[in-house]
């Protein structure tokens, strides 16, 4: 548990007046308030820090105690007293977040440092964030592979000890957020529950590049097939197709395979297109005979 320099948090020096503390706090609160920084964990953390700093420095008693013990706070009388108070609160504080990755569901309002020195959550002076009627929204991230979102699938997630059945529609985008209404924190005094917001982080280690419902891939073809034409078998996302290569196909030629792309989000049975770019492979390690034949071709051109 580290010492927190509350003066530094508010950008003040130790001789700051009450008015200066108030001004600094209000300015920083406007900058970092969670409602003006939605989905910004850094701002949320910063807001908690400045609230805590204000809680201590704007209260003459707390400020005096903080100033007196400073960095040696662990040896001070305040620490001794706080330790006793803390025992009774520890049980409550240990009710941590659920086991669902990335969730940040029940962050304590105050740091361990604060709770050790001032004995738990303290009586808030009405600063910080006003209490709500509607429950808190829960934010979570779900890591998926691109192969997982090629087909609609059902998953059961555990969020804060509750099982939630989730249908992940095929074609969901990387970074997309799905809202599950009413599965967030409980409301207060009969207020509605918050929502569960799940962000999908989709990794892709396949040879296919994805742009929405379209897929892109390169396919190598040999020089002779490119010049004379022929057939090649190319891999699509979920299978293989045979393609006719036209004679005199140029390097970088693009072929569109209609409907062989990625599923279109929430449009059952509809798919985007697959774009194949041909990359012509030049022959190497030519035999004397091959070289002679290429020379013959060269002479025919001139």
């Amino acid at each position, binding site marked *: 548990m580290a010492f927190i320099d509350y003066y530094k948090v508010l950008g003040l020096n130790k001789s700051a007046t009450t008015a200066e503390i108030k001004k600094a706090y209000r300015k920083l609160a406007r900058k970092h308030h969670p409602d003006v920084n939605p989905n910004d964990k850094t701002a949320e953390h910063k807001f908690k820090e400045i609230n805590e700093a204000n809680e201590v420095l704007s209260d003459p008693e707390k400020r005096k105690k903080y100033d007196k013990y400073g960095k040696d706070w662990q040896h001070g009388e305040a620490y001794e007293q706080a330790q006793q108070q803390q025992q009774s609160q520890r049980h409550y504080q240990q009710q941590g977040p659920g086991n669902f990755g990335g969730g940040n569901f029940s962050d304590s309002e105050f740091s361990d440092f604060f709770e050790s020195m001032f004995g738990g959550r303290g009586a808030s002076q009405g600063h910080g964030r006003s209490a709500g009627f509607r429950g808190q929204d829960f934010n979570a991230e779900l890591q998926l592979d691109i192969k997982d979102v090629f087909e609609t699938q059902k998953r059961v997630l555990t969020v804060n000890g509750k099982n939630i059945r989730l249908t992940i529609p095929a074609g969901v985008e990387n970074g997309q957020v799905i809202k599950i209404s009413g599965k967030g924190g409980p409301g207060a005094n009969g207020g509605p529950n918050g929502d569960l917001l799940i962000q999908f982080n989709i990794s892709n280690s396949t040879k296919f*590049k994805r742009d929405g419902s379209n897929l892109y891939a390169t396919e190598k073809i040999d020089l002779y097939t490119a010049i004379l034409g022929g057939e090649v078998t190319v891999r699509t996302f979920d299978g293989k197709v045979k393609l006719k290569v036209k004679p005199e196909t140029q390097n970088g030629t693009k072929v569109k395979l209609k409907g062989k792309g990625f599923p279109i989000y929430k449009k059952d049975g509809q798919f985007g297109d697959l774009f194949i770019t041909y990359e012509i492979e030049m022959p190497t390690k030519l035999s004397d005979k091959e070289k002679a034949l290429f020379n013959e071709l060269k002479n025919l051109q001139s």
Partner: protein
Amino acid sequence: MSTATYIPIATLCTSYKVETSFFQDLNEYGLIEITTIEKSPCIHQNHIKNLESIVRLHKDLHINFEGIDTVLNLLEKIQELQEDLAAAKNRLRIFED
């Protein structure tokens, strides 16, 4: 239309410790939409999230209603830009090896 999805303003006044006039003012500034259900002014449940954000901006940061309207418009713009940026980033992955 289920009334369960509408929350009476009287209930909200108690929860947020504000006067009824606060909601009337918000309505006049076009920040909220009030629906009357059985002669009682209510707010739809889906608008509560937005309403709570307004209450916090007003109570925590002392922002007046004109300021809140401006903040909300700018936040909406930021969200649109963030969505555009995310889409552009996804698109750029096509060119990455």
